[in-house]
């Protein structure tokens, strides 16, 4: 059977609210008016954090030349960090004409011989998909030869956007890795963290708290993840989706196949971190665990509040406009509210229906949900008297024209804002932004300008 996933099926996920009243998908991107990465990009984001696996892109240099060693997904893996190692077959003219299967097989051999990975993910791209390289066959053969999983991930960019690639990655792991190994021991509190990529070390901001409670992270998909652990993921008692709607298909299927229930959490800000940890404890259903969790939350919140005291005065009465994507529309908003900052508007341009509803719930009746932030945000800053704009780099101009503070909320950020301690980092960064004279000064008229 081909390992190629059924794209249609992935696009119409039954566990997604919005697919109940939507007919078919509107997946086709608009030529000349499309931004954002492709399926390959999404699959890389989802799987690259496995540092003990090699990530081999079967494609030309556009697919990886600028895209390896770009994401800060740290690992505690003691071997060579393959997250930060780029592998590509660098398809040339010859491979297009005569096929690239032999080269791909030899590339896998080279990787296994020199880097001893626990698994090899092989990412198919547009060109070999068109020329018809049989990646499944190569992977199957190499898995048998080397005795490690070689996992085909069919993500030519023309099949769709990042989000789809992330689902395909989940599908590949489900089909080829999960359930292929038994854990050495099981505990009643084993969980999987799905969609936690440990960007800038976010996982490490709360994992120790779970462990303190006796909740064991059996595996992660895929931050600081291990191949040997994800192979045992079918024995978890609970799947926890961390800010990653795109992996709902994966958790739904794990529920169907292995009977594992799932919940969705965010660990941004105090309120959500507390709610997230408590939700895990409640889903595991142990009265003693729930009680201990409440105590831990109370302790952590008190500790945090004390450290936040110096910031309270600085943030009092401050208003912010938030222009970011997806679930960040509410998760970062919640963190800002924890700091005492009023969020007067947030962008829901790329959010799902559920995210929009959640944003409304968090921000209240008066807040503005921006559907076209690029054109709306300047006016909203004027009307609300906002002091702070949190957005991607492209919005910097809006901030300096309006002379208000700006903080970049891009994922390429080098710092983690997750968990309780991350809120302190966010507070310090926002304080620095608000107190920085540069936004007021940089666009000033020179003395000789009228």
């Amino acid at each position, binding site marked *: 059977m081909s390992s190629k996933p059924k794209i249609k099926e992935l696009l119409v996920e039954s566990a997604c609210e919005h697919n109940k009243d939507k007919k078919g998908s509107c*997946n*086709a*991107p*608009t*030529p*000349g*008016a*499309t931004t*954002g*990465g*492709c*399926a*390959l*990009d999404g699959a890389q984001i989802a799987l690259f954090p496995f540092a003990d696996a090699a990530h*081999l892109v079967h*494609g*030309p*240099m*556009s*697919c*990886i*030349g*600028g*895209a*390896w*060693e*770009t994401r800060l997904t740290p690992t505690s893996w003691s071997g060579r960090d393959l997250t*930060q*190692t*780029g*592998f*590509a*077959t*660098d*398809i*040339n*003219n010859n*491979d*297009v004409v005569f096929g690239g299967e032999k*080269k791909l097989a030899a*590339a896998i051999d*080279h*990787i296994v011989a*020199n880097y001893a990975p626990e698994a090899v993910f092989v990412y198919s791209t*547009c*060109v070999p998909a*068109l*020329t018809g390289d049989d990646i499944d066959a190569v992977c199957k053969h190499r898995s048998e030869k080397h005795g490690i999983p070689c996992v085909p991930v069919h993500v*030519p*960019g*023309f*099949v769709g*956007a990042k989000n789809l690639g992330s689902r395909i990655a989940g599908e590949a792991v489900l089909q080829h890795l999960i359930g292929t190994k038994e854990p050495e021991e099981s505990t009643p509190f084993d969980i999987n963290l799905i969609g936690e990529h440990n960007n800038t070390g976010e996982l490490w901001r709360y994992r120790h708290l779970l462990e303190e409670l006796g909740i064991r992270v059996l595996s992660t998909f895929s931050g600081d993840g291990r191949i040997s652990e994800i192979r045992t993921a079918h024995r978890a008692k609970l799947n926890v989706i961390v800010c990653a709607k795109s992996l709902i298909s994966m958790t739904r299927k794990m529920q169907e196949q292995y009977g594992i229930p799932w919940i969705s959490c965010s660990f941004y800000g105090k309120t959500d971190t507390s709610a997230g940890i408590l939700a895990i404890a409640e889903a595991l259903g142990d009265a003693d665990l729930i009680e201990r969790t409440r105590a831990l939350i109370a302790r952590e919140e008190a500790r945090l509040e004390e450290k936040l005291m110096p910031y309270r005065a600085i943030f009092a009465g401050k208003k912010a406009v938030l222009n970011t994507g997806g679930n960040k529309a509410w998760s970062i908003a919640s963190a800002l509210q924890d700091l005492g900052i009023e969020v007067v508007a947030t962008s829901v341009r790329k959010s799902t229906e559920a995210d929009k509803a959640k944003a409304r719930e968090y921000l209240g009746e008066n807040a503005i949900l921006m559907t076209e932030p690029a054109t709306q945000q300047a006016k909203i800053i004027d009307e609300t008297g906002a002091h702070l704009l949190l957005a991607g*780099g*492209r919005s910097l*101009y*809006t901030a300096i*024209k309006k002379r208000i503070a700006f903080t970049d909320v891009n994922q390429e950020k080098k710092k983690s804002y997750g968990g309780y301690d991350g809120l302190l980092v966010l507070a310090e960064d926002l304080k620095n932004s608000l107190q920085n004279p540069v936004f007021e000064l*940089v*666009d000033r008229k020179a003395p000789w300008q009228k």
Partner: protein
Amino acid sequence: MAEVRRKSGKPLQVNPHKLSQPMGATLAFLGVDRCMPLMHGAQGCASFTKVMFTRHFCEPIALQTTAVNDVIAVLDGGDYSISESVKNIGDKIAPDLIGVHTTGLTETKGDDLRGVASKIDVPLVYVNTPDFKGGLESGWTLTTQALIDQLTAPCDRVEAQKIVLVPNVSLQPIEVEKLRDFIEAFGFNVVAVPDLSSSLDNHLGEKQASLSSGGVTVAELERLADAAFVVSVGASVKPVGAVLQKKNPAIQHRHFDHVSGLVGTDALVAWLLEASGRDALPAVVERWRKRLQDAMLDSHFSIGQTRFLLVAEPDHLAAMAASLREVGGKVTLAIATVDSPILGDIQADQVVVGDLEDAENMSDAYDMIIGNFHTEALAHRVGKKAIMRGFPNYEEIGNALKHDVLYEGGAYFLFEIANAAERMREAQVHHEREQIKLQGIA
């Protein structure tokens, strides 16, 4: 002469520094004013490229995609996706030029770019840049040739003072500007093609631009053929000279492999004196030559005891190796992204086409690394020091204003390298001293 290995012999690239041909094409189109580069491929090709240049230059990058999907990949010959893209771009903004460049996907399915382009009546230049051939340099050069071939009007007279300057892709925006100013100091008028010096030079514009904001204008491109000279800098752009000469055989072509270091810059100056008919240098040029001479003496002790690994595009390797070699730097290994006629002329002991795995395996050969930001992690692994040069550099800001060429930039370059080499040795001495102390205590 260097020992040259032109093929890697491996079935893959490990820790690649090679970049693709469409990426070079995008960058060339960004050197045209009010241009919208349009990459003809799946949306990821443009997205990866856009992210890379955005992070390297810390600037918004204008780039659109024809967003080829599965249906179009099979059924469309390019007509629909390109003409639909042009229409959708035009709905929002009126670029002076749309720069269509292809990718591996659309070349594999064999789109007829010329045919499609002939049916579109907005200003448009097209170029075939499959990413399974060539690299950053060839994408830049093919695009520069296409701009001239498709836009420049033939001409049968020349303006004696006009020079068309064709920089190679590795010259950063400020270097293009310095080079233009340098030539203009001899009384010429210079048009750079492409010209990143006013588009991606880290300037704060009036507003958020959705097109390239700066660069050579389409009107200037149309009128290139009345230049007296075309000056190419870098072996990769040498073929551009002939393309312009087709528009006017009276144009003279002068080529330089690089304009780095004392000898390299002297060659340019000697020619400028001859071409301008002047007998004396502009005072500022003469002064900078003296400063470079002094910099060479001040830096020779440090650089002269250092063995270098250079990792870069071929033309960039040739330029940096020449600068270092003039003050005794030992370029023991140079790793090129792709093959090039210039490889045999690079002043290094060994020149290979390869990747950073090759660099890691040969780490005994060098003390210090000059290369893109990926060499930072390499340096940590092999216990060396790295200086950032080339695409991409996500670790540092200010890349567009790094000036390494001509007398002036050459002096800055030598100072930076010499200082870094000294600090590296100082750290080693400190480490050894600590070890001796520890042994003393034990």
